[in-house]
């Protein structure tokens, strides 16, 4: 389910972070700054994430990577992932959760995600994710 890699060396990698907690967003916001070459957009819940993805479509303005928390108000990460996949979007989706047992990974993959990484997001984790999906 790998999405399109950035088509130009100069083009920033567009990442959508879906996270309801302000502290976690603040930490995640600082990570792309350290990694460089990443443009981070934020959504505070799954419903907002689905709306943003739907608005961008699958063309050149689409996200290169979606990072999503699991437990959020309004719509959780599993449901957001299902709905994004139902739009026909093949962008890599990685869950970022404080629950990363095998059952948690399975649940995210069944919802349509490509991977799950434990919170908190770090430069090293983001680098690995970008490399895994050919975005680095």
């Amino acid at each position: 389910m790998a999405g399109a890699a950035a088509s130009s060396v100069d083009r920033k990698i567009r990442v959508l972070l879906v996270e309801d907690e302000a502290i976690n967003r603040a930490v995640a916001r600082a990570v792309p700054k350290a990694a460089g070459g990443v443009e981070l957009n934020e959504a505070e819940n799954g419903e907002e994430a689905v709306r943003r993805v739907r608005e961008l479509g699958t063309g050149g303005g689409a996200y290169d990577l979606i990072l999503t928390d699991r437990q959020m108000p309004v719509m959780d990460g599993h449901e957001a992932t299902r709905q994004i996949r139902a739009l026909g979007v093949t962008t890599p989706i990685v869950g970022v959760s404080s629950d990363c047992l095998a059952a948690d990974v399975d649940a995210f993959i069944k919802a349509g995600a490509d991977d799950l990484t434990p919170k908190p997001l770090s430069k090293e984790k983001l680098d690995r994710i970008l490399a895994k999906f050919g975005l680095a």
Partner: protein
Amino acid sequence: MAASPVNQLNAHISNMLATGLLDEHFTALRRLQDAESPDFVDGLVTNFLNDGDRIFGKLAQLLERPFVDLDVVSNHLMKLKGSSASVGARHVRLACIQLLQLTSQQKNRDEWISTLARGRAAFDEVRREFQTMVQLERQI
């Protein structure tokens, strides 16, 4: 001769890491701080302490009710578990995990209250140490 403020701060943080109050995620946070955002870590710590205070207060209120809504309790604990993981507050994160385990077991109110009290004590300890850290930073 007294240690310099920088050395005192580093020693204090090293001690918090060595005792397990903090984990490597706090170290990673400090690496993310730069000249453009010199108060990045302080800001996160302040928000975490305010959130933690609010959540523990809320949990204590919830446990006083005749009927304890475990879904609401779990939601609060998940939030605190996530934010404590983000700032590297290891003991608080572990306390949240212990409390979350109670939500899936048939435990009586006394066990809940004593486990919550231990969690609150872990939070108060990291709060004291974070406050000392901030004071040391201000001397630099």
